[in-house]
């Protein structure tokens, strides 16, 4: 896979990017196994509330006596999960839409892009807020019906709708690239040989788009992560006792008072989130330089 090799080579050549990739991978690993390793349960209340960091609690505790390290790592899991799945949704929709639009060309393309323009100008996150709040009960009912009742309905809503907010940029870029690739010799040849459209799209076009897909992937993930944290901060994301970085930061921000500085409540989740976002953005920039020369630094 050509893209993969290019990526690896870039990483090796630029140590900063390697560091960022390393940070992202370690955060993912910590999120996956961390909550089980700390020895505390993320929802377990205790009597030691609002303790500053110590040997027993590396990140301190919150108001209900819950260990902040466990909750931060659990929050990482939530945030990363929503970001990953949401990006997947965004990818699926965006790439398909963009490819089809570029491939079809002409009137169809023009209409499809007009739609994208309109959607682009709408305050999408605000619409998401409404959708998540109002569809919660029906989705809960539907999940119970399908015996998937243990999946938090909010999670499903967030993944789907946040994914649907971010697909527009991807669609535009993919469409642009498709228009270019469409004219290339090997595509023309395959078309002339009578290959079905589907095969053309998925066997020939798609692999050549993988570079640019990867770049915008690294940009979509942090975007969705921030969106999810945003919604959770406002109380419209995951609910107690579950945690996501957004809710933890909201708790930390809410605890700011003139008498006692509960700095750990804000610093650790906020710092971890910022670090992850920084690494992802840096990585995205770096990859974009290599894979998409048209992109702006």
């Amino acid at each position, binding site marked *: 896979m050509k893209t993969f090799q290019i990526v690896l080579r870039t990483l090796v050549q630029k140590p900063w990017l390697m560091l960022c990739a390393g940070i992202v991978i370690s955060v993912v690993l910590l999120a996956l196994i961390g909550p089980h390793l700390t020895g505390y349960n993320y*929802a377990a*209340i205790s*009597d030691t*509330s*609002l303790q500053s960091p110590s040997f027993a609690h590396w990140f301190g505790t919150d*108001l*209900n*006596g819950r260990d902040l390290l466990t909750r931060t790592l659990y929050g990482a899991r939530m945030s990363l999960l929503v970001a990953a799945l949401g990006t997947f949704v965004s990818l699926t929709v965006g790439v398909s839409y963009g490819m089809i639009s570029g491939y079809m060309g002409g009137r169809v393309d023009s209409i499809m892009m007009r739609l994208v323009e309109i959607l682009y100008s709408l305050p999408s996150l605000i619409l998401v807020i409404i959708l998540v709040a109002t569809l919660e009960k029906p989705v809960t009912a539907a999940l119970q019906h399908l015996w998937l009742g243990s999946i938090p309905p909010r999670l499903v809503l967030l993944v789907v709708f946040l994914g649907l907010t971010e697909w527009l940029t991807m669609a535009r870029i993919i469409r642009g690239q498709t228009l270019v690739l469409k004219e290339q010799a090997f595509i023309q040849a395959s078309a002339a040989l009578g290959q079905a459209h589907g095969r053309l799209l998925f066997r020939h076009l798609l692999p050549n788009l993988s570079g640019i897909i990867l770049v915008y992937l690294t940009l979509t993930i942090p975007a969705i992560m921030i969106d999810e944290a945003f919604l959770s901060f406002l*109380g419209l994301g995951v*609910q*107690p*006792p579950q945690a996501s970085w957004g809710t933890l930061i909201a708790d930390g921000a*809410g*605890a*700011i*008072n*003139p*008498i*006692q500085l509960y700095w750990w409540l804000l610093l650790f989740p906020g710092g971890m989130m910022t670090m992850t976002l920084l690494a992802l953005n840096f990585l995205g920039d770096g990859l974009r330089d290599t894979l998409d020369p048209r992109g702006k630094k």
Partner: protein
Amino acid sequence: MNASPASRRRISAAYILSAWLAGILALALAFFYFFGGWTLSEPADLTICNGDEPQTLDPAIITGQLEGRLALALFEGLTTRNAKGDLVPGMAESWEISPDGLTYTFHIRPDAKWSNGVPLTADDFVQSWERTLNPVTASQYAYQLYYLVNGEAYGTGKLKDFSQVGVKAPDPHTLIVTLTHPTAFFLELTSFQTLCPVYLPGIAKYGSNWMKPPNLVSNGPYCLKVWRLNDYILLEANPYYWRKVAFQRIKVLPTSNATTCLNLFSSGKLDLILDKNSVPASLVDKLREKPYFHANPFGGTAFVRYNVKRKPFDDLRVRKALALAIDKEDIVRKITRAGEPVADTLVPPGNKDYIPPEGPKYNPEEARRLLAEAGYPGGRGFPNVQMLYAKRSTPEQVAIELQALWQRELGITSITLRGQEWKVYLNTQSLIDFDLCLSAWVGDYNDPQTFLDMFVTDGGNNLTGWSNPTYDHLLDQSQAIPDPAQRMKLLQEMETILVDQDMPIVPLYYYVGISLYRNEKVAGFEPNFVDDHRWGALYPPEKKP
């Protein structure tokens, strides 16, 4: 002048940059001028944090304490309270009570006026009380007027002719009230907002807009000058009020977040925090040492309401199980932290003549046994239920803790939390649209009845769906009985049924009031049982009335 290319470059760059910055700043100032003028607020002598945006200012339908404070700054009843909380003459300058305790004759002061200069008459009271009792108004507190002859009949719609109800205005300055039984606390009720008069011509003229400034006509110490939703309310001294108030302009902030309140207080943008919910519980220990910390005990209880009409809370065993599984010490120690006493009964201590029943104690094993017996061993199969609470700092933390406690002790994982803004919460609670509800009650007068008479069948403030004819009967009996000691025994029997036997509610803890204010800035705030601190009685220390 022949400048070198490099310096020319730099000069031009600086030139362009400063032009750019100047342009932006000019735009910014224009913005600020235009929009700032509309949004920057007016100055005030005293700024109070009231805890949330009020649901309404209509005294006839108010049930919440924060709305009550505002209403009692705007309106005044026959009597009012002074800074100490004692009952003093209000709109009525004097009164007589007949020897049998059934007839009260109030003399309205001759200079009583509304804030638009129109004189206030006894008939205003008659019409206002009619409005409160009228079923169309749907006042949850209408039962405060059931002590009047035929009050209950009119309030429940059985009687359509108000002239048969025991309140009459034979002349503009005399009000005669007749009660069905002697009621010791009736005079206290006349200072309560439900019995305050409202300006009916204004309501007729403006309809549902009558509460907006400048339409609101009031008879109390203040008028409503500004009401910006979720921003602030500005009260201005009523020129026609019969007394002089010390603070001419009071700004009321609806800040619901406790830490924000504290932040505003410490930066001087707020002078008085009255509500304990507006003080962050986790900081109470540290705040206790500060000179601006004031403790004021009063009669109030926090409790959980069950909706006994919905599964699974229609089963007494489930109600008992959840009640016995709450480690109330944990809540007062960790969450509320102001030294609240744990409550196993509803009526708070403070009345020396009343001896409460024992009340159920924390017993997790028994709780687990009962839950299993009810069909949910280990919490398995427990249906999805929601606990409603008002989205203010302390109730939210208590709710989260309760959820965690029930999970820990009973294994129930299907309780979700539903936090709502105060006024929405009040509405939802009043419609009994919940499974569980975190509630609280502050006494309206110093007698156990103010806590117990809520829970009669279909009582306006019952809100659990619970009904027990024995309980209702005991209340009626207690109102007719002349001997106070006997009456207290009946009330104790009632409370036993309420908290020990049927358990439609679970008491959690008794309130300990905390207020924050600087002694150099505010005086006239003194502890009293009903936590009633009239803003008209506040004064800056140098201007003692």
